[in-house]
């Protein structure tokens, strides 16, 4: 089933037009010793009905557990219209809008996306998206090194309250270009990065400071104090933000009064399903002064030959297909389809819908934490303000408890033991507006049982 329309008569006529005796003859420039026989390691074809059955069986085996994991990917309600429209063939099966006149739909969607994400972050310019939040941070670090001409050091301060996977991606993606990442420890009592911890860099050349808000623990950093430290000394600030939270929290464009230099984040919460890890999209916004150092596609509004407004890819002189080895990045695609979904999501939710989603998520998490910490041996790790995620500490190892919950169809949170071994028996939990009071009660009941059956440490 290779979706090939040719009839035997077509093949004959086409070979005749070419002047070849067989299809095989068309490969006669390939050295014969390289040609292969059957691909034994690929199974025989299934028809669509058989594939449908196979996939449905596998999906059923996985089921839909009750989810309390956040840690960078969040389960929110997605209006049916979002993917109903996003998967229309005209969006789904189009390509990069290089032929602008035949791609005004995709181009205008991206322009509207750039407009919305700029407004949400309070920043001046946005690009058409990057692969995901983590790769967006890596690109932001490279961009800061290019744009911060006052700094020679290519040195980035990276708090350990930034998502551990983001820190790994930033290193993996930039390591060969000589960037140095210096990890900033957090206050283990508070779960935030103290502004005083920056003092030891007062007299040093620091290219950029990364600030994640809310941080990986769900705690709110003192973003104004951290940003002001950087602003005072010509260090760039790269904000990593959760887009849903921005309906309630101060946008990075206002941090420290005049805002940050670059703000990035994971766009998944905006209408993109969890889907096992992707596809998601990263967003990137910046001060207008830095736009020529931005990586990735950017759409601009302009006029056509008749003076009518229209949309086109712009500032392409930054990109790899023009500048080749001197490009700002090797990035070629953006995550167009996910940006389409996010733009529709933001249009349907609007300012009030997004605010209510953020508020409800925050309230549900507070209820979850309150419910679970009534159990003996469960306490909250960090006091102080947080947003829609929080760290709990158990009096015994988390992993066996989570395994017990999994058997009961509950994904109880993200075990911090591997990434933060200094936090004894810590679990990151999250509840969004998609969790109900009944869900929370179910979790509490199951956890009570699981703790009883697990031997205290």
């Amino acid at each position, binding site marked *: 089933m290779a979706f*090939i329309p040719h009839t035997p008569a077509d093949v004959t006529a086409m070979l005749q037009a070419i002047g070849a005796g067989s299809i095989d003859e068309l490969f006669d420039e390939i050295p014969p010793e390289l040609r292969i026989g059957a*691909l034994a390691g690929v199974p025989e074809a299934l028809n669509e009905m058989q594939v449908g059955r196979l996939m449905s069986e596998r999906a059923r085996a996985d089921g839909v557990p009750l989810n309390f994991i956040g840690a960078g990917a969040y389960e929110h309600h997605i209006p049916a219209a979002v993917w109903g429209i996003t998967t229309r063939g005209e969006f789904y099966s189009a390509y990069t809008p290089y032929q602008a006149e035949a791609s005004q739909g995709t181009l205008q969607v991206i322009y509207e996306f750039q407009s919305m994400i700029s407004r949400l972050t309070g920043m001046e310019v946005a690009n058409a998206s990057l692969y995901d939040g983590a790769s967006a941070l890596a690109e932001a670090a490279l961009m800061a090194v290019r744009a911060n001409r006052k700094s020679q050091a290519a040195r980035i301060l990276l708090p350990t309250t930034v998502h551990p996977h983001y820190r790994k991606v930033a290193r993996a993606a930039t390591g060969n270009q000589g960037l140095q990442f210096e990890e900033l420890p957090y206050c283990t009592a508070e779960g935030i990065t103290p502004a005083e911890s920056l003092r030891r860099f007062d007299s040093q050349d620091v290219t950029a400071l990364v600030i994640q808000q809310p941080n990986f623990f769900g705690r709110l950093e003192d973003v104004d104090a951290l940003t002001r430290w950087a602003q005072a000394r010509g260090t760039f600030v790269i904000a990593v933000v959760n887009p849903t939270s921005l309906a309630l929290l101060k946008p990075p464009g206002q941090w420290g009064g005049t805002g940050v230099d670059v703000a990035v984040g994971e766009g998944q919460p905006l209408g993109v399903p969890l889907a096992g890890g992707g596809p998601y999209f990263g967003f990137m916004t910046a001060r207008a002064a830095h736009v020529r150092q931005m990586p990735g596609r950017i759409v601009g509004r302009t006029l056509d030959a008749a003076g009518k407004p229209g949309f086109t890819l712009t500032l392409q002189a930054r990109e790899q297909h023009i500048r080749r080895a001197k490009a700002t990045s090797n990035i070629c695609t953006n995550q167009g389809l996910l940006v389409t979904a996010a733009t529709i999501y933001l249009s349907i939710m609007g300012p009030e819908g997004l605010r209510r989603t953020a508020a409800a998520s925050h309230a549900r998490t507070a209820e979850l934490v309150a419910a679970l910490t009534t159990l003996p041996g469960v306490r909250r790790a960090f006091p102080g303000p947080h947003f829609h995620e929080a760290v709990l500490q158990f009096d015994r190892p988390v992993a066996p408890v989570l395994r017990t919950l999994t058997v009961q169809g509950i994904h109880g949170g993200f075990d911090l033991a591997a990434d933060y071994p200094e936090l004894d028996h810590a679990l990151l939990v999250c509840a969004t507006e998609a969790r109900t009071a009944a869900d929370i009660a179910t979790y509490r009941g199951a956890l009570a049982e699981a703790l009883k059956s697990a031997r205290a440490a």
Partner: protein
Amino acid sequence: MSHTEKVIFEYSRDGRGAHDQWPADTDPAALADLPAGLRRRELPQLPQVSELEAVRHFTRLSQLNFSIDTHFYPLGSCTMKYNPRACNQYAMLPQFLARHPLAPEASGQGFLACLFELQEMLKEVTGMRGVALSPMAGAQGEFAGVAMIRAYHRARGDGERNEIIVPEAAHGTNPATATMCGCVVREIPVDAAGDVDLAALQAVVGPRTAGIMLTNPSTLGVFERRIAEVARIVHEAGGLLYYDGANLNAILGKVRPGDMGFDVIHMNLHKTFSTPHGGGGPGAGAVGVGARLLPFMPIPVVGREEGGYRWLTERDLPQSIGRLSAFMGNAGVLLRAYIYMRLLGRDGMRQVGEFATLNANYLLRRLAAAGFDAAYPQRRASHEFILTLRRQARELNVTAMDFAKRLLDYGFHAPTTYFPLLVPECLLIEPTETESRETLDAFVSALSQILAEAQNEPERVRSAPHTMPVRRLDDVRAARQLDLAWKPSAQQES
């Protein structure tokens, strides 16, 4: 397709909204723990529209696009083949969509089985020893490949090797990737027949050679016939061979990069394995490696052991180049590629390469007969081929871009224009295997009519397109008077 559509903010009215989609409001007391200094003072200025207004707006925008589902899209090097609907439907089963990326492996065995089997099938069709699925696009796959080459040399104490050889016809991502990996790019020419200039290659290899990046068939639409010789020269100099999988569709089921001597390959799953292009992404750039690079694969990889499937991480692959995405790459795209491969099966794989090549050679022959010049007339087309309109540009003062734009009026997406850069006035045409003979004939007919127009009424071609929502756009104005986000005053300009 001549309508235009307002910007969504122009529909916005204070107090309007898709209320039924909103969660119930929260008691402000539940937000009291958020300090005032960290709160947003005013709501973000997002559009306030009804659900129907949003649905209608975005549906109308979709109708301003060309797409595979609506138009022949012979965009060279992009493999715009039919994206089977089944791939989308079964990748979007509710259980797959609900799966959290950090959920336990125990409750994701169905999902992991699909990814593991995808790795195995991709190994088979490319002739490689290992496959890692996490790179999120071709360019990230390239990055992973070159980063692995560097890691390999470093691990052998041969870290001075930092030169990547790239043919001048290569995709721009190749040199850009080499730079991102801290390498120096050495470009080499191709000869008049489109093959790599072996003397130039011989002259450039040496103790600093990290590797070479090649596409085969090359971006010139022809098979690199002396690939075994290229591999020998580079390997003898101590370098590794990187295969850019952009053109894998041409050889699927016929030849395998691993057998040609390549050490590492990236595959564009959105091309060869028909996952959607989505208006410019998501792609997926899985990488395959030979034995020497197995320890360096990017994580996570799916492993199988007694008891089931699990993620392999840095604990299993301590020499890995690391993690390239927050979670598992473009997982949903991987599911679509898996479904596509299961639908095609082993015989379907071979048919892809065969019929893609048949269509390209047929189209080339017919266009040559209609008066167009092939860039490499003495060569077979692979799955794509290049026309050069140098003669028309000189004699008629009508450029390849003019032809491309006029094709839009005839209901065909334009081929890739002006790539590769070394062929003047070129159109890179890739019909793919899923197009019928009638469609190809209609395309020939359209290009023939445009050629006649170029001779008889050239201004009609030069000023095309005439039937699109907009005429040619002012790119210079777009770059000089940047308008990257909508402002209420921006509409005054129109």
